[in-house]
């Protein structure tokens, strides 16, 4: 460790890093290796899509389909494989509502908020959902098991109000049917676990 006397600083010591400390500091800037499960999903997606024109979108879908989200720590790896900047990949992930950057809850519940569903009581259904789950739109249920998101049209506009629960579209959703669907989904997950 060297200490240098700065002129005119009233004798205050300014510490400079030693070469060893600098090396340590640089090392800490290198991201830690990816979690094996994440690495496997990301590498598989890269292998499939890296040479495909416009392959970033299907690549990100493949990662999210495998992991349920696109881990932020995977972005530099994806960027490097596609010869893009990290900013470009981050820009795409953050632009699209569908891509998630954090681990999803056990259940994903998307309520349609568009006009056709509004005409058939989507607002009342949302209020019911918020009460039942104990959270508001964009939030997670009190037990952390269900995330509640808006969706703008599922193409079930003559069977309104509609929702998508764990990837399955559901139509003509009354509060009673809402409760039944949710209970069924929770039971299915419980049985699987």
């Amino acid at each position, binding site marked *: 460790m060297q200490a240098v006397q700065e002129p005119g600083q009233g004798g205050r010591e300014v510490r400079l890093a030693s070469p060893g400390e600098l090396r340590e500091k640089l090392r800490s800037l290198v991201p830690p290796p990816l979690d094996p499960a994440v690495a496997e999903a990301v590498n598989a997606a890269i292998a499939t899509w890296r040479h495909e024109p416009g392959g970033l979108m299907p690549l990100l879908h493949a990662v999210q389909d495998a992991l349920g989200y696109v881990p932020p720590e995977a972005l530099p790896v994806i960027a490097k494989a596609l010869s893009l900047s990290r900013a470009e990949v981050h820009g795409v992930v953050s632009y699209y509502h569908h891509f998630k950057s954090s681990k999803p809850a056990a259940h994903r519940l998307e309520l349609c908020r568009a006009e*056709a569903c509004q005409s058939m009581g989507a607002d009342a259904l949302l209020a019911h959902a918020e009460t039942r789950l104990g959270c508001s739109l964009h939030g997670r249920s009190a037990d952390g098991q269900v995330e509640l998101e808006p969706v703008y049209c599922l*193409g079930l506009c*003559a069977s*309104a109000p509609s929702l998508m629960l764990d990837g399955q*579209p559901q139509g003509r959703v009354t509060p009673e049917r809402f409760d039944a669907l949710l209970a069924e989904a929770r039971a299915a997950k419980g049985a699987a676990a």
Partner: protein
Amino acid sequence: MSITIFVPRDAAALAVGADAVATAIVREAAARGIDITIKRNGSRGMFWLEPLVEVQTEAGRVAYGPVQASDVAALFDAEFQRGQIHPLSHGLTESLPWLARQQRLSFARIGVTDPLLLDDYRAHGGGEGLARALAIAPADIVQQVLDSGLRGRGGAAFPTGIKWRTVHDAPGPQKYIVCNADEGDSGSYSDRMVMEGDPFMLIEGMTIAGLAVGATQGYIYVRSEYPHAIAALEAAIGTARDAGWLGPDVLGSGRAFDLAVRKGAGSYVCGEETALLESLEGKRGIVRAKPPLPALQGLFGEPTVVNNVITLAAVPLILARGAAFYANYGQGRSRGTLPIQLAGNIRHGGLIELAFGVTLRELLFDWGGGSASGRPVKAVQVGGPLGAYVPESQWDLPLDYEAYAAVGAVLGHGGIVVHDDTADMARLARYAMEFCAVESCGKCTPCRIGSTRGVEVIDRLRTGEQRDKQASLLRDLCATMVDGSLCAMGGMTPFPVLSALKHYPQDFGLSA
């Protein structure tokens, strides 16, 4: 002999329990020792009757609906498998007035066939258009489409033949056919029904487009909210490739055309063609300035046809039956048929394919049977979230691109959303601005900032703060958005807002 029972696989049928019904029918038939075969068809488009189960009888297909799994035992008790009467039966499907009065050209097979069986497709006229296209010169295919009067069914209504001719004449080493299947408009589901109910028709239409303009690769950009459509397309493309319909040598012609499905990621503005192209290139779905036109510099900078699902789906029939046959439907400059989608607060909502010219009043009452709630119909939004609210005084206008444009409304993609008298039009106007703020790509200021300011102005209007001043401010803001936005997102969001303000001023606390 095995009895054929049809249970739809359309997402709207699955969303109300069709899979459970199919399972229950198989189980019940086995328990009773009855030999049946389940066929998964598309939807007939009568959504209030879904799940609509049909039984093949000597007289024709007999309809039962809406069937729940718990009804199945009683249906067998009544011998529905022999077409017998039950409280849920509606008689012969083809004789139902709702269906019989339609002019189904693009939807002729949907609900009838198994969408994933190529043999079924061919047995119902599929493939004739492609065979004809392979027998004539590319320029003649373009001429057929031009002569048919077909215009873009995605909403912009641009003449399809002119777009194709531009791409045909453009030099380029690699041209593309892009199908816009990013059907994000509320009240619209005809694209979804085609993809799920007759995917080979779309594949055939895109192949014909490829032959016409000299493109060898096509992409179908489908929204991620349509998982069943994506699965159906993937399966159908695989089958078409195996059968030699797609690939390096289309039906032995020596000409190449292949297709890939690309999944969107929940961005509404990607339904705008240039944003869609950006997304297909793997970028943020940001709108491009035009020119250059996509027809000249589209996907990866190459000449590209971008057409909506319904536009491309109309092409096989135009080639098979001739341009004159198609142009014979419709009126004025709106030729052919429009698959109209009746949705929202309506008793009998569903898919109605008719020649242009029907009126909203006929659709709402003769077909739709009035509101689902039984209350008076107050407002009808035609053409999706960017379409105007059409008041009762305009319900007798013919559905026709020009007639609607003349009153400041649009037909758009043919989606019709019905609201009863409980609708608060100021709230719906606010929603239009809010939706624009959520979905704006952010490239141009009138859309990005204007939508947020729009929400604020409408909020002040609704709370009664200097109402007349706020109303004129809102009109001024809308004028800026209409004139200054780069694409229809910001440019048309004012349509629902201004029409609500004009026709329902009392909902904003203004005097009429």
